[in-house]
C-alpha cells in the first residue's frame, strides 16, 4: 500500500485510534504511554502536513468509508478549510500532550490512562470532522466528539464535575439531535444530497423560508459553536482539568463547532445563498450580541478559567459572525479566526493551568505579584491576550480586518460596532490579568518564594504555552499564505 492522499486521509483517523488502543496497553508504564501519544502526535502532524501540501496543490483527496444502515454514506473529503482545522488540531495536540504530561503528573491526577485514551479518541473525532465529506459524516464525528470528551469533562469525578458534565452532554446532545439532525434531514430532502460542494448544494430557486429555517437550525444545532443562548455548556465544562479545557475548549470541541458552522455555510448553503437568506441577518446580529454580551460577562468573572471560557464564547461568535455575514472576506475572516484564536486561547488556558499547577491559584484577584516569580508564563499570557485582542503584530489582528471588510461588503457596517466594542472589552478583561502579576506586589511574598522553588519542578507546564505564544506572534506574518491556501473554498476562489 503506497502512501498517497487516500491513505493519508485514512491515516488521519487511524493514527489517533491506534494511539487510543496502545495507550491502555501501556497503562502500567507511564513513560511509554506518553511516548505513544507523542509519537502518534508527530506522526499525525507529519501526515497532516503532507495532506496540506497536497491540498495546496489542488488535490482533494476523497475516501469512502462505506455506507452504514444502507443509505448513509460515510465519506471523507479534504478541502482547504478542513485541512486547516486538521493542521491546528494536530499541531496543538503535540504541544498540549507535553503540557498534559506536566500537568497531570504535577497535580498527581488519577486515571491518567483513561485521560490520554479519550484525548486520542477525541482527536480522531476532530480529524473526522475536519475531513468529513458530507453532513452525515460530520454529524457522526460531531457526536463522537461529544461522547469521547464527556469522560474528560467529568474526569475529576466529583459532584461538580458530574454536574458540569451533565450540562455539557445535555446541551450538546440535545441541540445536535433536536436541531442539527433535523437540519441535516432537511438538506437531504431539499437538496437531495448532504455532500459538501464549493458554492453550496441547494438547487436554484430553493425557498428562502426553507433556507432560513435550516440556517436557524444549524446555527443553534451546532451547540459546540456556543452561540448565545446555547453557550452554557462551555463555562460549565471548565470543571475539566485544564489540559482538557486547553485542547478541547480552545481547539478541538469549540473549533469543531465553528468549523462546522463555517463549512456548512460555505459548502452546503454557499456564500451567496447564505447571504440572500434573511435569517443570516438575524443570526449575524445574534452573533454580534453574543460577542459583546459574553465579553461583558467575562468582565465579571474572577475565576480565571471562567473568564477565559466567556472570552471563548465571545471569540467563537466572531467565526459565526463571519459565517453569517457570508461575504467572501467575512468567511475568510472566520477561517483565519479559527486558526488565530486557537493558538491564542490555548496559550491562555495553558498559562492558567501552569499557574494552577505551580501556584495552585485559580482566582484572578490572587495573582498579584505572581508574574515576578513566573515571568515566562505571565509573559506568554500577555502575548496570548494581545493576540486575542487582535493588535498587530499578533495573529489575532487579521481575522478582525477580514471580518470588518466582510461586514462592509455585506452592507452591515453597523456590526463593526460589535467588533470595536469587543476589542476594547478584551483589553479591559484580559490585559489586567497578566499585568497584575507583574505590577501588583505579592500578597504573601513568602508563599511566592516557595512558588519559585516549585516552578523548577514543573518545566513541562511552562514550555508549551511559551511555544504557543510565540506561535501566536509568528502567525501574524503568515496570514498571506494562509489566505491564499484558503481561497479555493470560495466559489470562483475570489476574495
Amino acid at each position, binding site marked *: 500500500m503506497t502512501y498517497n492522499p487516500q491513505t493519508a486521509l485514512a491515516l488521519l483517523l487511524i493514527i489517533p485510534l491506534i494511539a487510543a488502543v496502545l495507550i491502555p496497553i501501556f497503562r502500567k508504564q507511564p513513560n511509554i504511554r506518553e511516548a505513544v501519544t507523542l509519537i502518534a502526535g508527530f506522526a499525525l502532524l507529519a501526515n497532516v502536513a503532507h495532506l496540506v501540501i497536497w491540498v495546496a496543490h489542488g488535490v482533494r483527496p476523497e475516501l469512502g468509508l462505506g455506507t452504514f*444502515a*444502507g443509505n448513509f454514506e460515510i465519506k471523507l473529503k479534504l478541502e482547504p478549510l478542513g485541512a486547516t482545522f486538521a493542521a491546528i488540531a494536530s499541531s496543538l495536540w503535540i504541544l498540549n500532550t507535553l503540557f498534559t504530561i506536566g500537568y497531570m503528573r504535577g497535580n498527581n491526577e488519577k486515571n491518567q490512562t483513561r485521560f490520554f485514551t479519550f484525548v486520542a479518541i477525541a482527536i480522531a473525532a476532530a480529524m473526522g470532522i475536519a475531513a468529513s465529506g458530507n453532513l452525515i459524516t460530520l454529524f*457522526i464525528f460531531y*457526536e463522537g466528539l461529544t461522547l469521547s470528551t464527556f469522560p474528560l469533562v467529568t474526569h475529576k469525578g466529583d459532584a461538580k464535575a458530574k454536574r458540569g458534565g451533565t450540562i455539557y452532554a445535555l446541551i450538546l446532545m440535545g441541540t445536535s*439531535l433536536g436541531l442539527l439532525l*433535523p437540519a441535516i*434531514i432537511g438538506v437531504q*430532502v431539499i437538496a437531495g444530497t448532504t455532500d459538501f460542494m464549493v458554492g453550496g448544494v441547494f438547487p436554484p430557486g430553493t425557498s428562502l423560508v426553507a433556507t432560513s429555517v435550516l440556517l436557524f437550525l444549524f446555527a443553534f444545532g451546532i451547540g459546540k459553536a456556543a452561540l448565545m443562548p446555547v453557550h452554557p455548556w462551555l463555562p460549565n465544562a471548565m470543571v475539566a482539568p485544564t489540559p482538557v479545557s486547553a485542547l478541547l475548549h480552545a481547539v478541538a470541541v469549540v473549533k469543531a463547532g465553528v468549523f462546522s458552522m463555517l463549512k456548512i455555510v460555505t459548502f452546503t448553503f454557499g456564500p451567496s445563498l447564505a447571504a440572500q437568506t434573511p435569517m443570516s441577518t438575524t443570526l449575524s446580529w445574534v452573533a454580534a450580541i453574543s460577542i459583546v454580551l459574553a465579553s461583558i460577562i467575562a468582565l465579571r468573572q474572577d475565576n480565571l478559567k471562567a473568564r477565559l471560557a466567556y472570552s471563548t464564547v465571545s471569540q467563537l461568535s466572531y467565526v459565526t459572525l463571519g459565517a453569517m455575514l457570508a461575504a467572501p472576506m467575512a468567511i475568510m475572516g472566520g477561517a483565519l479566526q479559527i486558526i488565530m484564536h486557537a493558538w491564542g486561547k490555548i496559550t491562555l488556558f495553558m498559562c492558567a493551568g501552569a499557574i494552577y499547577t505551580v501556584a495552585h491559584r485559580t482566582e484572578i484577584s490572587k495573582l498579584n505579584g505572581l508574574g515576578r516569580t513566573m515571568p515566562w508564563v505571565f509573559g506568554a499570557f500577555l502575548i496570548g491576550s494581545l493576540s486575542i485582542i487582535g493588535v498587530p503584530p499578533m495573529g489575532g489582528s487579521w481575522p478582525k480586518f477580514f471580518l470588518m471588510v466582510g461586514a462592509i461588503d455585506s452592507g452591515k457596517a453597523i456590526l463593526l460596532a460589535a467588533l470595536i466594542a469587543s476589542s476594547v472589552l478584551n483589553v479591559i478583561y484580559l490585559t489586567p490579568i497578566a499585568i497584575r502579576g507583574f505590577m501588583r506586589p505579592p500578597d504573601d511574598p513568602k508563599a511566592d518564594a516557595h512558588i519559585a522553588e516549585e516552578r523548577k519542578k514543573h518545566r513541562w507546564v511552562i514550555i508549551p504555552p511559551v511555544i504557543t505564544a510565540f506561535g501566536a506572534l509568528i502567525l501574524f506574518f503568515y496570514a498571506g499564505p494562509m489566505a491564499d491556501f484558503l481561497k479555493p473554498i470560495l466559489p470562483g476562489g475570489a476574495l
Partner: protein
Amino acid sequence: MDILSAYPAWLITHGAALLVVLPLLLGAITAILPRERLAWIVTLIVTLICTAAAFGLLLTIFGGETQLYKMGGWDPPHGISYVIDGLNTPVLLLISAMAVLCTIYGLPSVAAEVEPKKRAPFYGAFLIGVAGLLGMVATGDAFNVFVFLEVSSISTYVLVAMGASRDRRALTAAYRYLILGSIGATFFVIGVGFLYMETGTLNMADMARILSDLGGGSRAALIGFGFIIIGLGLKLAMFPLHMWLPGAYAYAPSFVTVFLASTATKAALYLMLRFTFTVFDPSFEYVGTVLTYVIISMAVLGMLLASLQAIFQTDARRTLAFSSIAQVGYMLLGVGIGTAASLSAGYLHLINHAIIKGALFFAVGAFWYRYGITRVEDFRGLSKMMPWTMGAFTIGGLSLIGVPFTAGFVSKYNLASAAASNGWWWAVGVIMATSVLAIIYIGRILLIAYFQDPPEVDGKVVAKKEAPLMMLIPMWGLAILSVVIGLNAYWMDRAADGAAQVLLLGVGG
C-alpha cells in the same frame, strides 16, 4: 438462496401451519411435563424450529414468492387460509426469534422468579402464547385472528400473573390487563362482525376485494373500522389506551416482560397495518381521515406525554414501559403519514424497537436477578458491579435515543426524513423533541449507574457479580444486533420496504 436449499422442503411448504400448530400442541404437552428442565428443552426446540421455519419463509419472500397456505386444503373463502407475504414474515421471524432468546434467558430467570411447581406450566403457557401471536400474524382469516388474539392474550394474562411470586402487584396488573385486553378483543370481534355483515366473508383478501368494489362500503363497514382500530389500538397500547401496559410490564416476570414488550404489541400493530392498509384502504376517505387525525394525533400525544411520564418514573421497568408507549407513537406516526417511506420507517422501527427494548428489559431483568434492583435510584454503581450487563443496557439505551450507528438512529432518521419529504416539518420537530426526552430518561439511568459509587453494605462495597452467561448471551445478541443494524440496515430496509410495498400495493393480500 443457498441456505434455503438446505431446508427440508416440508419446512417451507408447511411452514405456515407448522409455526402455529407446533407450539400450540406442544404447549399443551409441556404444561404437564414433570420436570422443568425437560419443559425448557422442549420449549427451546419448538421455538428454534419455529425460528428456522420463519427464517426459511422470509428467505422465500426475499426470493420473490408469497404463499397462500390453505388449512386442511380448503379453499378460501370457506376454509381458513394462512398468508405468507412481505408484511408478516418479518414479524413471524421476530416473534419466534424473540421466543428463542427469551427461552435461553429463561433458564436462570424463570428459576429465580417462578415457583418450582409452576415452571412447567409456565413454559406451556408461553408456548401457547407464542402460538397465538404467530397465528394472528400468519392467518388470513379475520375471525381466526380474533381466536389467536384471545389465545395469546389469555396465556399472557397467566404469564403476567406468574410474577406474583416475585411481586404481589402482578396479580392486580394481570387482572387489569385481562379486563382491558378483553375489551380490546371484544371491540375487535365486534368490528369483524360488522365487516362480515357488510361483506359476507371472513377471509381478509375477499373482504378487501369486496370493500374496494363497494368503494369503502356502507355504514356497517365504517363502524366496523372504528371498532377494529380501537380494539387493536388498545392491544398495541396506543395512547391513551395504554393503561394496562406499565403495570403488566413492571410486575410480570422479566422473561415475560421482554417477550411482551418485543412481540405482543408488535403483533397488534401488524394487525392494525394489515387491516388499515390491505383490508381497508387509505384511499377510503374515512380511513385516510382516521389515519391523519386520530392516529397521528394519538401518536404525537403518546410520544410526548409518555416520554415525559418516563422521565419521572422511579421504577426502571416502568420507565422503559412508558418509553415503549412513546415508541409506539413513532410507529403510528409512520403509519399515519402513510407514504411508502414512512410506512417502511415505521415498520423498521417496529422491528428495531423490539430488538432494543428486548435488550433493555433483558438487562433490567438481570439487575433484578442479581441484586433485586428495579428502582432507578438503586442503579448506583451498576457499571462497576455488572459491567457487561450495564454495557448491553448502555448500547440499548443509546439505540433508543437514536445515536448514529445504532438501530434506533436508522429508523428515526428514516421516519424524520419521510415526514420531511411529506412536508411535515413539525413532525420532525416532535421526533427530535422526543429523542431529547429520551436522552433525559435514559441519561438519568446511565448517569446514576456510571457516576455513583456502588452502595456499601455493612461497610463493604457490594461485590461485582456479573449476570449468568445464559442471560448475557441473548442480551448481548440483541445489543450487537442493534449495532449491526445501525451499521448496515440493508436486510432490514429490504424487509421494511417489502412490507411497505405490500401495504401500498396489496401484493399477496
